[in-house]
């Protein structure tokens, strides 16, 4: 059984100064922007990766970039660890604090600052939710493309931290492909701007470096993102199969043939049952696996693309094909899919994997995943972005049973190693966080990690920014 993943031991020098730190932070922040009472700190002890929890030292909820800078300048001055937090929806524990950390929550930075249709950009504060951006421009015919399933709640700051993806990223790319600029605060309180409203920036691609850096290179407080014009039409179609392998092979052939729909999502029978119970979307209940394939464009474009996809699906023995008949039905199909993780809570606790594999390996990895989970006496529900090969096995377990929890963690580790061994990687979109940190050694040689850590240290020489995450504790440079 794997050991629990260790956080850095809290610094005694910080814990001993707790009262002074809290009092100093109170001077830096407006009233109502600091949580320091012991009761109030407990709800910040975890995010959506609930197997791990640490009550932080304090939670700062700044209202301006200047306040974020003041808090960071103060914390770096005393070597106090800082953990950024958006909406706390991370599935890899990216926002889980440590006992000596000040959490900087961006939830009060929730304004849309500028919408520029001429340049097709929106500039928003980091605490704006992903969906809020699309909603703000929807009436004018635009949207922000990356759509993590938690888009209702997750913030753009968190999306940048994890380089989040989503169902529709198959066509439009993930966060990094839709991000034009950021305002960001460095560890010592320096405020910098990277990128602009233009598609390219001179010099090194620091913006590309920041996107996906999991809160370790700085704290983003504003972002400028691309807006995309909405398509003329969009149609999700349901394809039911009698085996997961057949559905997986179908996905591989669709992409292999050069067809790129907007989204290809996969659900196996347990996932279908879970999602149908919540959304009543009309998913077929007599199949072992389901693909939601969305096509978009003009009617003729959609018909042509669908004809190609249907022909491929028939070769793989598709048993049900169901087109959504209305906007309401389409919305329900997506509501069910996007609520899948939360809805799983109806039947069990879960940990959600995020491995990505080459598409040709999908059927094999699905089969092996089932075997791993069965061997450990657990259940699994698969619901994921099949077109990207980004798998999300949900390992079902009982969190109140420590042995069950340890088995779930073991199954997760084996599945992620399987993804790496199949030529893929540990994370498609959820980030490494705390969850996959110690598996980084399976993905990377020590020399690779050393180079990445050198880049990290160039931004944060003291290692105070979200320090327990991403890089295995052993092998780090001496602080």
């Amino acid at each position, binding site marked *: 059984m794997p050991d629990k993943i260790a956080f850095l031991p809290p610094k005694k020098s910080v814990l001993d100064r707790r009262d002074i730190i809290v009092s100093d932070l109170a001077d830096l922040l407006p009233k109502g922007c600091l949580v320091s009472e012991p009761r*109030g700190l407990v709800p910040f002890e975890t995010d*959506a990766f*609930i197997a791990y929890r640490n009550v932080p030292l304090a939670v700062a909820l700044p209202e301006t970039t200047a306040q974020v800078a003041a808090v960071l300048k103060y914390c770096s001055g005393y070597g106090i660890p800082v953990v950024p937090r958006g909406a706390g*929806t991370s599935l890899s524990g990216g926002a889980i604090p440590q006992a000596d950390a000040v959490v900087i929550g961006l*939830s009060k930075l929730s304004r849309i600052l500028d919408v520029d249709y001429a340049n097709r950009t929106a500039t928003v504060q980091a605490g704006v939710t992903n969906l809020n951006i699309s909603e703000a421009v929807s009436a004018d015919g635009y949207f922000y493309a990356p759509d993590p399933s*938690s888009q*209702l709640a997750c913030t753009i700051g968190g999306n940048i931290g994890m380089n989040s993806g989503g169902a529709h990223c198959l066509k439009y790319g993930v966060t990094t492909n839709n991000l034009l600029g950021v305002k960001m605060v460095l560890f010592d309180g320096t405020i910098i701007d990277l990128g602009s409203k233009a598609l390219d920036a001179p010099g090194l691609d620091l913006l590309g470096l920041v996107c996906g850096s999991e809160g370790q290179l700085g704290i983003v407080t504003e972002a400028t993102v691309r807006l995309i014009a909405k398509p003329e039409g969009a149609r999700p179609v349901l394809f039911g199969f009698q085996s997961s392998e057949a559905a997986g092979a179908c996905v591989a052939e669709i992409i292999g043939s050069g067809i790129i729909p907007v989204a290809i999502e996969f659900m196996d029978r347990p996932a279908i049952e879970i999602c149908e119970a919540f959304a009543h979307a009309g998913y077929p209940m007599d199949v072992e696996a389901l693909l939601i394939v969305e096509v978009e464009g003009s009617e003729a474009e959609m018909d042509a693309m669908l004809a190609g996809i249907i022909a491929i699906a028939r070769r793989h023995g598709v048993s049900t094909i169901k087109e959504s008949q209305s906007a309401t039905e389409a919305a329900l199909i997506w509501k069910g899919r996007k609520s899948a993780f939360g*809805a799983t*809570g*109806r039947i069990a606790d879960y940990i959600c994997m995020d491995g990505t594999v080459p598409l040709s390996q999908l059927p094999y990895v699905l089969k092996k995943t089932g075997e791993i989970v069965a061997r450990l006496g657990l259940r699994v529900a698969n619901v994921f972005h099949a077109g990207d090969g980004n798998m999300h096995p949900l390992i079902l377990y009982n969190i109140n049973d420590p042995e069950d929890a340890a088995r779930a963690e073991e199954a997760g580790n084996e599945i992620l190693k399987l993804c790496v061994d199949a030529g893929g990687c540990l994370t498609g979109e959820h980030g490494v966080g705390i969850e996959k940190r110690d598996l980084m050694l399976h993905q990377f040689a020590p020399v690779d990690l050393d180079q990445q850590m050198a880049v990290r240290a160039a931004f944060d020489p003291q290692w105070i920014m979200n320090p327990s995450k991403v890089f295995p504790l052993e092998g780090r440079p001496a602080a």
Partner: protein
Amino acid sequence: MQTTFTAAQLADPHVAESEAILRKCVHCGFCTATCPTYVTLGNELDSPRGRIYLIKDMLENGRAADEEVVTHIDRCLSCLACTTTCPSGVDYMHLIDHARIHIEQTYRRPLKDRFVRAVLAAVLPYPSRFRLALRAARLGRPFAGMMKRVPLLKTFGVMLDLAPDTVAPASDSTRPGNRPAQTARRGRVALLSGCAQPVLKPGINEATIRLLTRLGIDVEVPAGEGCCGALVHHMGREEEALAAARRNVDVWTKAITDGGLDAIIITASGCGTTIKDYGHMLRLDPGYAEKAARVSALAKDVTEYLSTLDLPRLEPKRVTVAYHSACSMQHGQKITVAPKALLKAAGFTVRDPAEGHLCCGSAGTYNILQPEISATLKARKVKNIEATRPDIIATGNIGCITQIATGTAIPILHTVELLDWAYGGEKPAEIDIAN
């Protein structure tokens, strides 16, 4: 999520129920996005997920409530938007009900809070006392501004602002007795008179009686019914709430025995949410559990019942209605289609304001107890409603009517008042449209 209650703790059925609710939460955070107080304040402690955690920590440790916890629980509107959003089916309503009872039993509020709450509980549920208070409020109006500057009197200053300009005399609609169907009889219902509503807007139940009897329904106003108990229930004053529930269950059970009932009609969705929960509230009372469950099953919002009567489709009117769905309607009772479908069938043009899932800030006595957050939510709601450029606002809850009316000049009516007008009743006095 993980819980650590002991077997001894779980022997208490309330704790056992809360534990089962907590176990369903996977901490996904979706609920934060649609929570009015999180959206307003940006602090997770003022979100459902934060409150769930605070409640879990308090109950697990068997600890008395303290100021930090009470502050954040008190800020919850009980709008239940989180229960509409939650994918994993967390029964937040019954969890926070339990927390409020625990707070009431273990926490001593400051004197001022205790006084205000005692006054609200002693006045609002009783129509004659409430009417008297409102008449006195008219005299007190000139002093409202001054009172709001004195901390001890602030809450009463807020109440004066909410009090209407005129107070109608006791309505005939609350007189017990049967109102026979005016056309071929097709059903029999009991109508809840309620407490605050007939004092503030007696026209709502008058319109309901006119409309239903015109449609062939016998409408019974049973003797002895009173406040549904929601007000004290949301304060955690459980014994008072259960006493109110038992009294009404007795009254309606008699009405069922005497002449049969097709439904118990409720015209305030806040009350509807509570009455539909009587079966749960009294589940541990062997003398009442079954009767209460029957009453809850018969409880229907007036629009829910009307939509079973197949009302004829009418010619379009040149009247645009912004429909404001009360939280207790859309989240508490999950009634989202019926009111708008009825208005459309009656010929009204119906508009959905943006952010319809967000509370207007009324939330029972919330606008009195949490005036700052309430005022922010009211301004947001009114802005969204006015953006639809309606002639009239329609809603199904007296609290929203009172709240929104103090923020806009657009007339606001109960859905049933518009339906009564459309189906042969008089035009409500509030409407002044040239058509």
